[in-house]
């Protein structure tokens, strides 16, 4: 990829090089390689990162516990937090729901035909759990957990893997005492020895084998998605179908035109553009909620005809007790309030979602939900 490109000099000079004060060598240990990299030319771009900025972003935790903040959490608290914030995907016992990751179990399966790679069976370092939960979980509401909650969740995941007792308290102090079962299960890439040495040979060109038989066919499994490919030009009909069009029934369009001329328009006049915008906003909801024909409850309840529905009203969905205890119906006001600030509105809701900040987006989202039968 480098051909025909004049290489950039290792230390390109500026037209007017900035005078850079030489930093005092630290401890005098400056290697030769390092001296080369230093170069001496700086561009003077960027600005110094402030300590509080570094503190806000530099939150990684390494296996020796470096980076862990003060705090602690016990298994039982962890269970409560886990059931509320994690179980929708990972199951009450960290066993995993559907295709979502299993966090517990799998002990002794790594050499099986179908290894089950969980925190308990596979992860070599506990720091990885803390770091990942703290930084990236819950899915859809990352970086919302307190340090104590992360300690508690980590303790509960250990408990669900039978690695600690139910009275265990995890803290920064005892963190590195925990040894993960598979800590010695990894080795550094050895392909140069085990593979490259074998395969860097002159390959066979003729009579490389006596016979060739087909031993397996993909069509036996038939797991390939439907492929509409085909090189024939599209017919007019296909082209029309391929272009998504927001249809507006003539009478609706007329109604809209009339109401628009009357005043700004009552809230219940369907606005195709608003609905389309709402459909786009809904994409972030679709991780957990289904809509449309045949919609089923998934992480969250199906949302067909949600406007006007009783709050907590889908019979076979397991709501949080907070949601189940709510009275009333979902209308524009209650939906707006809830979608803007789910957990402020219904403290204890299982919905691990920070909320939609932009009120235009909320309006569009409700218009879209209302358009669903």
């Amino acid at each position, binding site marked *: *990829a480098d*051909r025909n*490109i004049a290489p*950039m000099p290792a230390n390109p000079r500026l037209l007017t090089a900035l005078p850079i004060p030489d*930093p005092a060598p*630290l401890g005098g*240990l*400056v*290697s030769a*390689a*390092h001296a080369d990299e*230093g170069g001496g030319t700086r561009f003077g771009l*960027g*600005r*110094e*990162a402030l300590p509080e900025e*570094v503190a806000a*972003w*530099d939150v*990684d935790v*390494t*296996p020796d516990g470096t980076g862990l903040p003060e705090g602690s959490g016990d298994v039982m608290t962890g269970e409560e937090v886990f059931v509320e914030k994690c179980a929708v*995907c990972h199951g009450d016992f960290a066993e995993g729901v559907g295709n*979502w990751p299993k966090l517990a179990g799998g002990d002794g399966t790594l*050499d099986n035909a179908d290894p089950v*790679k969980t*925190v308990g069976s596979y*992860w070599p*370092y506990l720091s*990885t759990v803390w*770091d990942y939960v703290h930084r*990236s979980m819950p*899915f*859809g509401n*990352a970086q919302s957990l307190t340090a104590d909650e992360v300690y508690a969740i980590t303790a509960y995941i250990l408990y669900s893997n039978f690695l600690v007792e139910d009275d265990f308290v995890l803290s920064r102090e005892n963190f590195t005492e925990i040894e993960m079962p598979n800590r010695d*299960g*990894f080795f*550094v*890439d050895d*392909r140069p020895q085990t593979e*490259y040495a074998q*395969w*860097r*040979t002159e390959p*066979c*060109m003729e009579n490389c*084998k006596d016979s060739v*038989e*087909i*031993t397996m066919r*993909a*069509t036996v*499994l038939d*797991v*390939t*998605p439907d*492929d509409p490919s085909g090189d024939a030009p*599209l017919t007019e009909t296909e082209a029309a179908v*391929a272009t998504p069009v927001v249809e507006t029934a003539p009478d609706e369009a007329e109604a809209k035109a009339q109401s628009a001329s009357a005043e700004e328009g009552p809230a219940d006049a369907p606005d195709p553009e608003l609905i389309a915008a709402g459909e786009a906003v809904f994409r*972030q909801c679709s991780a957990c909620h289904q809509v449309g024909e045949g919609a089923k409850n998934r992480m969250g309840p199906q949302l067909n005809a949600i406007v006007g529905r009783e709050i907590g009203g889908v019979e076979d969905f397991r709501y949080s007790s907070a949601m189940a205890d709510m009275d009333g119906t979902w209308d524009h006001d209650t939906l707006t309030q809830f979608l803007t600030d789910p957990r402020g509105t219904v403290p204890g809701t299982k919905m691990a979602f920070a909320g939609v900040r932009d009120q235009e987006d909320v309006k569009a989202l409700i218009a879209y939900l209302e358009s669903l039968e």
Partner: protein
Amino acid sequence: AAPDPLITEVQPWASGFGDPVDAHPYGTPIRFEDDVIRRNVEWLTADTISSINFTPIHALDGTITPQGCAFERHHSGAIELAKPDFRLMINGLVDRPLVFTYEDLERFPRENHVYFLECAANTGMEWAGAQLNGAQFTHGMIHNMEYTGVPLRTLLQEAGLDAAGDLADKWIYVEGADASSNGRSIPMDKALDDVLVAFKANGEALRKEHGYPVRLVVPGWEGNMWVKWLRRIEVMDRPVESREETSKYTDVMADGSARKWTWVMDAKSVVTSPSPQSPITHGPGPLVITGMAWSGHGRITRVDVSTDGGKTWQPARLAKDGENKALTRFYLDTDWDGSEMLLQSRAIDETGYVQPTKAQLREVRGLNSVYHNNCIQTWHVTPDGKAENVEVS
């Protein structure tokens, strides 16, 4: 034969007007090509927010992948990050922790390089046997673009590496601005070698789904390390051992032990046409067999093609000399007699590495690696021109 009315009769397009300029201020492919799109495999992941789709390699030629159909992989969805909101921090064992804006990055001397990006899981579903019927699905977690960006080396020098002391055992940790952050540790010698902090691809801004406005380019190494929406680079004296480099992107061997730090993507190739989604429709006679080859070790120097399942091989024609850590297009211009073929390709790179068979890989690694499957692929082409993904003895 009757004369062709497409020739003898005046066609509407030869008589009336076409689109004026500005009909499409930013053009997209003509509607006849709207099947050349990314596709996903629903059962692979729990949700499309954290998922992957596949480049339609069966329908592309040349080497550059258009951004609009280059595969996507997100761990927490493709975020919208505006240039004014972009910040890149360099901290850790540096002389001066720095924060750059997007504008700052554009003021450093920049370079252009073409590199392939392959997901470590490309062809991963095929470890245990032929599964998916189409080159898009078996080999489509790859794209190849021309990147414009600033060498990471330049930015690290700007922050100053005196504080890091001996660089031989140092690492950088890189993370993105999205909710997954997708942090990865990279040894310092790679960071100072050819890693780019890129903001353009194929001449235009990166697409949102590829990390707009700034992503990391880690040539020849697994795609997961090419952190998108790049926000922080920390110089460290050890790897973080993050989720993406312990529980994921590690290769489980038959005995249950696992390889880690398997960063380099070994030499690999695939015939893209004919293939299951790109059957032969013209019958016997002249036939162009084509495909692509790449290696994380450097340049592709040769690609061999077999039409009999690996009994005999012949060198294919490279469209141009192989380029460092970039896709190479190969052709075998043949005269097909209409008999069935077991079509394979085999890449060889400048280090002499020869793309292995699935049997060779399984002998070392077993069936459960998931990642880094660079085996020789076989398409069974039948006399009617259809092709199927198969495994052969």
